[in-house]
């Protein structure tokens, strides 16, 4: 029985993968309808990652658009040896890090002044997170933004995207040991930022690691 279920699941996975590679082939051939289907399939995921990395709704939307255009234009360089999602995450991460650099040189958006209202945050928080008020969500996102980007990227891919160390290493093109050390450092920076933020209620002592 269990074997039958496993076989069915495996068959389902293979079918989904070949459906996707057919879709990608149609996109490569310039089929506009197929391209829209592919974009719709991944735009929410790309946006979520971009929002995590940039911490700002409008910037995240711009970066999402940029990444998806780049995705369609560079589909020919996707060879199918990595998972499509991994490849797309890598592309998105690169676009976001570039966009961040350009913003930093243009303005100091990263100061602590709020640059968006809470309305930009998810309009309908799911039940699991209703215990976090909008203000706390906003504060947590700001703490995340304060971490230097190489550490933030690892923290976002791990905590927000729930990816394995191996996938993070592939996306960021860094060795596994580096994923571990950056995550370690990133989490400590995050903890210090969160514990020192008086908007975030915490059961733990503040300021122990300034």
């Amino acid at each position: 029985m269990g074997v039958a279920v496993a076989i069915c699941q495996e068959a389902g996975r293979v079918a989904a993968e070949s459906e996707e590679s057919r879709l990608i082939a149609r996109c490569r051939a310039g089929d506009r309808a197929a391209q829209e289907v592919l974009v719709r399939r991944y735009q929410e995921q790309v946006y979520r990652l971009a929002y995590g990395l940039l911490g700002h709704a409008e910037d995240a939307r711009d970066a999402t658009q940029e990444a998806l255009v780049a995705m369609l234009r560079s589909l020919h360089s996707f060879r199918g040896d990595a998972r499509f999602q991994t490849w797309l995450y890598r592309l998105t991460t690169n676009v976001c890090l570039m966009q961040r650099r350009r913003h930093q040189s243009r303005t100091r958006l990263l100061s602590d002044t709020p640059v968006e209202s809470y309305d930009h945050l998810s309009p309908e928080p799911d039940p699991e997170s209703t215990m976090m008020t909008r203000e706390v969500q906003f504060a947590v996102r700001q703490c995340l933004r304060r971490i230097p980007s190489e550490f933030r990227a690892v923290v976002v891919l791990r905590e927000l995207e729930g990816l394995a160390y191996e996938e993070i290493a592939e996306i960021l093109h860094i060795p596994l040991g580096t994923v571990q050390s950056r995550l370690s450092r990133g989490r400590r920076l995050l903890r210090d930022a969160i514990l020192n933020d008086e908007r975030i209620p915490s059961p733990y002592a503040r300021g122990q690691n300034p």
Partner: protein
Amino acid sequence: MTCNEISELLSPFLDGRLSAPEFEQVAAHLEACATCRDELAALRFSAELVASLPAPRLPDDLAPAVAARASTSPWRDRWAALLDVVVPRQAFLVREFSRAVAIVALFLLAATVRGRGPSDLVISWPGRVAGAAGTGMAHLTAGLAEAQVYLGSSGGTSPAKPAAQPPRERRPARLRPSSIPSDQAVAATIQEVRSHGLA
């Protein structure tokens, strides 16, 4: 192991990435050391606060705009980005005219810079222009790349209903962001990581 060494291992400890002997060493230390227990609990608390942020929803469907932009050449895209600052989007004729003027001006400028002056250009212009065209293109490319960097993306978007998306897969919340004493939180963490298996 000292507290400092333990501190380095707490993050992989949370993810079950330590070898069995390392894990047992850390677990034994945690049972004896209140400072490290607090540190682990705080580390986990803040990481899970981030993990439990609700997923943002994309405000509109990007598919039509993205597919349209991807089918134009990247060059057109850069022009559009550059001209957006110079001329408002609606003024089509002005835009097209300024595009032509910009090209001519850039080429002349490049030619002038390369030669010693405009008079040089007039005397032996075919060779010079050919050479300058190359330089001009190089300048143009660099300039446009820079402009694009400063301008960001500029693709128009049409408001549309967001497409139905599969719900985000989330990890089960291991720790609620509430006041759990660190002793209990750490004991629970050790149990959990153990039961999930080690690296």
